[in-house]
Every structure is written in structure tokens, then in C-alpha cells.
């Protein structure tokens, strides 16, 4: 069993540098097998004089998804377009965690511009799932999920636009938290779909996620969509437990497309919660089935606009030997972007174009409201919603790359949460055919603390989150 954040902070306090060195050596030993990192960094040499306030996470190693810009450290977003991009500033998430004392050990691999559910769209090659190296880790935060699962870092950041933290967390057997939209600043997080993107955490446990969320959440004047409300003490809130909580089971998720064995494990996990004092009931969300189609209008629309900035002039890839400006734009973009990114830009351009805007884009926004209203209505009768995070455990590399729609449907249970803006997490809930699966918990707006407390209670009664993939066992520093 790998030690949690609390224990690691203790070791880091008593033996400065030891914790970061331990994880750095594990990255050296195991990353070749997983391809979880795009850039690996050496921990900084120990400071001559210790800082007056070393920070609440002093000495805690961390990896950032390569979508967060890091000052003077290459940031690629998994794309050829940004292969040589060295940002001049830190994302707010990076800055806050550095201020809290975290030690950055590297930038993790990801689907290109966070568009993908298997990590196979990365320009830097796919990440492999530590539970089975022939399978995908999920995506888009697949590098962060694999790195935490294999014990290469204790915690890592991720981003979640349609399930990109929770789906890889489920497929790699780790805890993945997507906070409420606006809870964490998006400043310096390379934009994909701005009304859906949210930064979050991949960690071993809900407790570890609470430690990191407390340090990275909060209002940021540089992100006009960050919520101006106080950050609760998520670590203290863990003690609130699960007793008496009303949990609504998302029955729609069990109807179609769900691997029956995954369904059985999720029912088992829900029975554990009931035994711990939660009260279960059934919930149906009439419009949830429309969340994937709504998402595949709205996310591409926002992406086609956000990615217009890549023009080969100010930063990013530039085509060589071009004689006119229009061709420079077109060639630079065509060479710099991969197939999935181009596909989404084209879909987005189509649904926003004259004559189709009302039928696709506005209709998807209307459906988005219906989906959010379904969730808000359900959450007025229960404290949390629960179901499976994914329809199946990890699939094989290459299994779904031929058909984009099959890949999109992998996020069928997670996407509605992003459309609604709600917080959600995935926690390890057992194994199917030797592969981990995740239990999905969804909370009300800004109710991360309640969700984490319920997850912590579940993890106190189960050991799924403590298991390491064979070959990646670790004793800790």
C-alpha cells in the first residue's frame, strides 16, 4: 500500500528531498513502459535556507497535465502544434500548488488538446494502462491517471471537459475529482471548450484529493468565470462521513450499453454505502440520453473558436516555405493539428455556420438547460447521485480508433455533469476481468466537501483504492 499525502508530508518534513527523489526514481524506472510523461523534471536542489512558510503541501511531489502552462517549462498539450512551446507564465493552478510547496516532477501525456477518451490522439504516442499494458488508460488525462496508478507520483492534476479526469481515473483504478465549474481557475489552462473545461485532481484517495483541492481552489481575478466564494476546509470536512446521506442511483445508466459485470460491481459498491448509513433511492433523468449529442455540438463549437488562435505566427507550429499569408495559416494548422482535432474543428465550424446555427448550436444549448434542470431537480431530493463512471473497463489500444462515434460513447455517463457544471468524482469500486472500474458520484453545485466525505467513508470500508497494479508495487519513501 502506498502512503497518502498526509504521511508523505510527514516524511518530507523530517527528511527534506527524500520524497521527491523517491518518486523521481520511480519515474525513471517505469515511465518507459507507460509513456505517462511528456516532460520529466528534476526536483530543484534543496534551498540553502528553508522558506519562512514552506506551505501546507511542502515537499509533496506532483505532476501537471501538459495542458497547464508552466513558466519556462515546455507545454505541448499533446500536440505537434505546441511541440516547442515554452510558456512565459504559470497557470494559476501551477502557481498555487507551487506556493503550497508542491514539487513539480513533470508534465503528463494527454490526448491532443484534451480531445479523446483513450490517450491515443496524443502526438507523443499513447499512454499504457499499468493494469494491462495492451490497454488504454482512458483520456484525456490518461498520463496523470497512469502515473498515479503506477505510483510514479502521489497526485497529479487533470482537466475534465466531458469526463477527462473521471474516465481515466476509473480505467486506471484511482480517485479522480472534477470540481464544480468555476471552483478552480482556468487561467493558464489551454482552452478546449471554455464553458465545460474544469481543472481537477487524480489521486490515490478522496483524502489526498481533498488536500490538493483545498490548495488549488478559489477565486482568481484573472479568470472571469472563477467563482468568488470561500474555499471550505475539504480536509476537515472528510470527517463528516456518509451516515444519513441520501444517494440517488442513476437508473438510466444501468439500462443500455452497460457491461453487466460493471453494473454488478457498482450495485455491490452502493450496498457498501447503504451499510455505512447512506439511504438509497432510484432516480431517473429524462434528458440524460441527450447529453452526448448536445456535447458533440457544443464542445466542437467552442473548440473551433478557441483553436482559431493557432495561426503559425505568434507561437506554435509554422509551416515552412510558404509564399502567402492565407496558405501559411492553413498549412501551419493542417500540419500542427492531428486528425481528431481537425475533425472537431470541422464539426464546430459546421454547427456554427450560417443556416445551421439555430438547428444545431442553439438547440444543443436548449437541451443543455433541460439536462441541468434534470440534475438540479434530482439534487433537490437527494444529496448525491451515483452510478458507473464508464460502461466498460479499459479497452484495448486501437480497439476504438477506427470509429469516432464509438469512442465518444465511452463518456456517456460523465458528459452530462460537464453540461450541468456540477462537481463529480470517480472512485475505485472493484475489478472486472482483472481491470479496475469506477463508481461515479455527483454532487450539487460547490458541494465537493460532501462528496469527498462520502468517498472517504467508502474508502475507509473498502480496499480497492489501495491496490497497486502487478509489477508497480511500491513501499513508499
Amino acid at each position, binding site marked *: 500500500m502506498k502512503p497518502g499525502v498526509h504521511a508523505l508530508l510527514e516524511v518530507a518534513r523530517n527528511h527534506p528531498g527524500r520524497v521527491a527523489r523517491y518518486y523521481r526514481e520511480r519515474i525513471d524506472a517505469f515511465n518507459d513502459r507507460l509513456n505517462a510523461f511528456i516532460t520529466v523534471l528534476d526536483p530543484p536542489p534543496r534551498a540553502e535556507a528553508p522558506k519562512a512558510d514552506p506551505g501546507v503541501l511542502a515537499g509533496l511531489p506532483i505532476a501537471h497535465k501538459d495542458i497547464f502552462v508552466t513558466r519556462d517549462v515546455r507545454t505541448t498539450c499533446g500536440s505537434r502544434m505546441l511541440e516547442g512551446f515554452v510558456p512565459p507564465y504559470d497557470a494559476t493552478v501551477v502557481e498555487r500548488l507551487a506556493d503550497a510547496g508542491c514539487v513539480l516532477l513533470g508534465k503528463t501525456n494527454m490526448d491532443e488538446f484534451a480531445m479523446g477518451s483513450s490517450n491515443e490522439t496524443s502526438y507523443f504516442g499513447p499512454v499504457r494502462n499499468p493494469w494491462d499494458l495492451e490497454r488504454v488508460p482512458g483520456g484525456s488525462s490518461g498520463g496523470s491517471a497512469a502515473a498515479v496508478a503506477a505510483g510514479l507520483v502521489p497526485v497529479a492534476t487533470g482537466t475534465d471537459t466531458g469526463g477527462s479526469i473521471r474516465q481515466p481515473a476509473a480505467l486506471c483504478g484511482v480517485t479522480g475529482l472534477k470540481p464544480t465549474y468555476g471552483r478552480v481557475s482556468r487561467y493558464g489552462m489551454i482552452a478546449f471548450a471554455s464553458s465545460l473545461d474544469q481543472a481537477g485532481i487524480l489521486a490515490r484517495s478522496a483524502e489526498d484529493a481533498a488536500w490538493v483541492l483545498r490548495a488549488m481552489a478559489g477565486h482568481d481575478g484573472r479568470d472571469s468565470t472563477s*467563482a468568488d466564494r470561500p474555499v471550505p476546509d475539504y480536509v476537515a470536512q472528510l470527517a463528516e462521513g456518509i451516515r444519513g446521506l441520501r444517494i440517488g442511483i442513476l437508473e438510466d445508466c444501468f439500462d443500455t450499453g452497460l457491461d453487466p459485470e460493471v453494473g454488478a460491481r457498482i450495485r455491490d459498491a452502493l450496498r457498501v454505502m447503504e451499510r455505512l448509513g447512506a439511504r438509497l433511492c432510484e432516480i431517473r433523468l429524462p434528458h440524460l440520453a441527450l447529453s452526448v449529442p448536445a456535447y458533440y455540438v457544443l464542445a466542437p463549437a467552442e473548440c473551433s473558436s478557441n483553436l482559431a488562435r493557432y495561426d503559425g505566427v505568434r507561437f506554435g507550429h509554422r509551416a515552412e516555405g510558404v509564399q502567402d499569408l492565407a496558405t501559411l495559416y492553413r498549412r501551419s494548422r493542417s500540419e500542427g493539428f492531428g486528425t481528431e482535432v481537425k475533425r472537431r474543428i470541422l464539426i464546430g465550424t459546421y454547427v456554427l455556420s450560417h443556416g445551421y446555427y439555430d438547428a444545431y448550436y*442553439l438547440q444543443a444549448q436548449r437541451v443543455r438547460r433541460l439536462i441541468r434542470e434534470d440534475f438540479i431537480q434530482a439534487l433537490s431530493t437527494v444529496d448525491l447521485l451515483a452510478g458507473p463512471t464508464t460502461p466498460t473497463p479499459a479497452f484495448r489500444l486501437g480497439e476504438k480508433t477506427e470509429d469516432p462515434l464509438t469512442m465518444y460513447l465511452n463518456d456517456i455517463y460523465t458528459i452530462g455533469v460537464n453540461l450541468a457544471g456540477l462537481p463529480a468524482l470517480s472512485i475505485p469500486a472493484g475489478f472486472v476481468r482483472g481491470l479496475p472500474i469506477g463508481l461515479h458520484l455527483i454532487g450539487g453545485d460547490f458541494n465537493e466537501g460532501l462528496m469527498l466525505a462520502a468517498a472517504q467513508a467508502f474508502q475507509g470500508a473498502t480496499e480497492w483504492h489501495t491496490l497497486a497494479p502487478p509489477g508497480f508495487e511500491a513501499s513508499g519513501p
Partner: protein
Amino acid sequence: MTFSPSELDKLAALACLDISREERERLGGELARILDFVRQLENGATDEVEPLTHPLELSQPLRADVVAEPVDRERYQRDAPRTESGYYLVPRVIE
């Protein structure tokens, strides 16, 4: 639905992307299938429903008009593929 080669070219031009001849056939089919799939949205009863543009429905905050950070052009331009004397270089646009 289907995409003719000329419709696909028009879309690619709007998106500032080149589509190779080999890509064209596959991409046309894929885009058509994705758009057919999202047509399910018509099943939503949305007559009286206002579009939701954003989950939080925030208003844009204003901040005081004061200098927040210096503009370090030299540093920013280190990421630019081609610059000269503080300018970004592009192919000639005026004959």
C-alpha cells in the same frame, strides 16, 4: 446526410484547414455520421426553453483600470516562429 467534396472544401476553408484527397472521403463519412447522431437533439421538447450558454450564468466582472503586469515583448516573442525588431514576420501581404 452526406458531404459533397465541394461542401467539405468550403467547410475546410472556413476552418483554415487543408484536407488531402485521401482524408476527404473518410472525413466526409465521419462528419456525416456524427451530424446524423447529434440530430437526436430534435427529440428534446425545447419550444419554451431558453438556451443555456454557461453553467454558472455569471455576469462579467469589471476590474480597476490599473496596470496588472508588465508587457515583456522580448520574452513573449521567444515563442514566435519568426520575428524581427520586435515585429512578427509573415509572408508579404502587399504587392
